[in-house]
């Protein structure tokens, strides 16, 4: 699948001037609120007609102002999961789910597809209820199922978790991961949450004030020092891919293996061999010039300083290469100078186990790793 977006559009004083191309998997459109994320997917869905430009999915032109093509929204086969669900209040969950299917005129294998989607989203018990009787998390799962059953060629999700509390978010995230891994439908996922993007995205498009600031695979984007002002300094961090090595029952710890080295963290409920993503926030990483001893931090990873970011007041971001895996650290300029943290310096990165961001710990990653080779950097 390829999605090519090249649009210029004005909304009041806000100007959208965006050009990117992405491959399959889950593409995150990432940026602060007001960066133009929702406008872009509204243009992809056909809810907004762009002033200029084109949108193409797999060679099918959805809109092209130059040749005057504008496919109406109901003919685009682009599924849309809205922030607020937008379930039809006068229909039951089952009728909501089947709404788009009827228009897709694809009745073959309907029972199977319904079963599969209902099963994947865990909504079997809700089928005969009406939306008003559902919780926020249930509504969003039904909305995802409804979009999927309309047989879309592309699924758009506009901050589907934004209106939910942390508990409900945690309830839905695994379903979105399953969707990414089990269905072949590519997803464009709008979010301003680093944790969500780190956990879910195959590739990321970073937006800033209507323009594309960067495009690339998630792990690569997450470690780009120059993007921190856009992603939010406090949230900056690296994404590490790791495998569950063993569980330590005595201390309730789980050991993970990654290219950077071994990680120990509070026990995870995942079988040995499970592949996960670990997001390590820059503010939780300390650097040391010598191998520390007698220290309570369990995760000590040797590495080499690969890059130092521009100073931000008294703080500086440092990118450390740990055997090909990247870690970010946020230290004071004072420490950086005192320890001589310049490019090429040998260091040890220290991470407290309890500091690891459990919210962004992802479930299993699809076999074959992260297919982002098609994502191009424009």
């Amino acid at each position, binding site marked *: 699948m390829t999605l090519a977006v090249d649009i210029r559009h004005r909304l009041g004083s806000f100007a959208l001037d965006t050009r990117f191309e992405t491959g399959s998997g889950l593409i995150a459109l990432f940026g602060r609120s007001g960066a133009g994320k929702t406008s872009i997917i509204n243009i992809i869905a056909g*809810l907004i007609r762009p002033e200029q430009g084109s949108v193409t999915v797999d060679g099918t032109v959805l809109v092209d102002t130059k040749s005057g093509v504008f496919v109406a929204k*109901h003919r685009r*086969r682009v599924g849309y999961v*809205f922030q607020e669900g937008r379930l*039809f209040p006068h229909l039951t969950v089952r009728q909501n789910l089947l709404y788009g299917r009827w228009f897709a005129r694809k009745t073959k294998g309907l029972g199977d597809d319904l079963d599969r989607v209902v099963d994947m989203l865990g909504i079997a018990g809700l089928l005969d209820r*009406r939306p008003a009787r559902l919780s926020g998390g249930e509504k969003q799962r039904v909305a995802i199922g409804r979009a999927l059953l*309309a047989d879309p060629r592309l699924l758009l999700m506009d901050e589907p978790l934004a209106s939910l509390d942390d508990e409900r978010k945690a309830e839905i995230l695994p379903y979105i991961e399953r969707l990414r891994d089990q269905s072949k439908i590519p997803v464009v996922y709008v979010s301003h949450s680093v944790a969500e993007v780190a956990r879910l995205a195959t590739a990321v498009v970073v937006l800033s004030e209507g323009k594309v600031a960067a495009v690339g695979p998630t792990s690569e984007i997450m470690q780009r020092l120059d993007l921190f002002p856009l992603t939010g300094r406090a949230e900056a961090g690296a994404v590490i891919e790791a495998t569950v090595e063993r569980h330590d029952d005595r201390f309730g710890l789980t050991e993970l293996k990654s290219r950077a080295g071994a990680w120990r963290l509070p026990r995870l409920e995942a079988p040995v061999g499970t592949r996960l993503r670990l997001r390590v926030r820059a503010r939780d990483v300390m650097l040391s010039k010598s191998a520390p001893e007698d220290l309570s931090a369990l995760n000590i990873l040797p590495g080499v300083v690969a890059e130092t970011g521009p100073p931000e007041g008294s703080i500086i971001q440092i990118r450390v290469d740990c055997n090909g895996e990247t870690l970010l650290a946020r230290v004071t300029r004072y420490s950086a100078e005192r320890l001589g943290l310049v490019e090429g310096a040998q260091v040890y990165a220290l991470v407290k186990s309890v500091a690891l961001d459990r919210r962004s710990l992802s479930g299993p990653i699809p076999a074959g790793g992260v297919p982002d080779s098609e994502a191009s950097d424009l």
Partner: protein
Amino acid sequence: MEWLSLSPEEWTAVHLSLKVALVATVVALPFGIAVAMLLGRGRFWGHSLLNGLVLLPLILPPVVTGYILLILFGRRGPIGSFLADYFGIVFSFRWTGAALACGIMGFPLMVRAIRLSIEAVDARLEEAAGTLGASRAWVFLTVTLPLILPGIIAGMILCFAKAMGEFGATITFVSNIPGETQTLPSAIYTFTQVPGGDLGAFRLTLVSVAIAMLALFASEVMARYANRRLDIE
């Protein structure tokens, strides 16, 4: 209890009134929905003009409305003669004319009720239906229409009630012909004009009250049913 039973003439008036009000309501409904959609959703030149035109019968003296109908829809009126010549539809001094007058008088009430419910519909739901593959016509039929059902019911009841009670425009336009254009209010009026008509007027008044109560009750039941289907929180 002999005095309570209706005479054949009175039955005719009741029967005619129900027929006139029902036909007026049913025929007005599609126009009412269309105009309510136009006024509730449309942004066009002449919006206020259309709105004013629809509301006019509510504000004008009914006799004036009846007289305008007489001019326009009478046998020699521009619309009346056209309809008579090409479609064979005659309004003047027929029950169809009474239905037209009642429909016109009930129309503003119907449009208002439906328009309010249209404006309350979340347009984002219609957008969602569009992304699921529904064309505009299907969105209207499967999302908008079910959601405005309570408003439609309310509008129909209001229009029906207004039609049952319409007097001024009807009597001006189609006169007061027993068996043809003499509806309940006209019949009651006639009774009050003749000596010894009190009992007849009283009987028809009771019938009027009963019909009004039934209509209210029916609207209550239907609204409750529609609301339960919508599961409004």
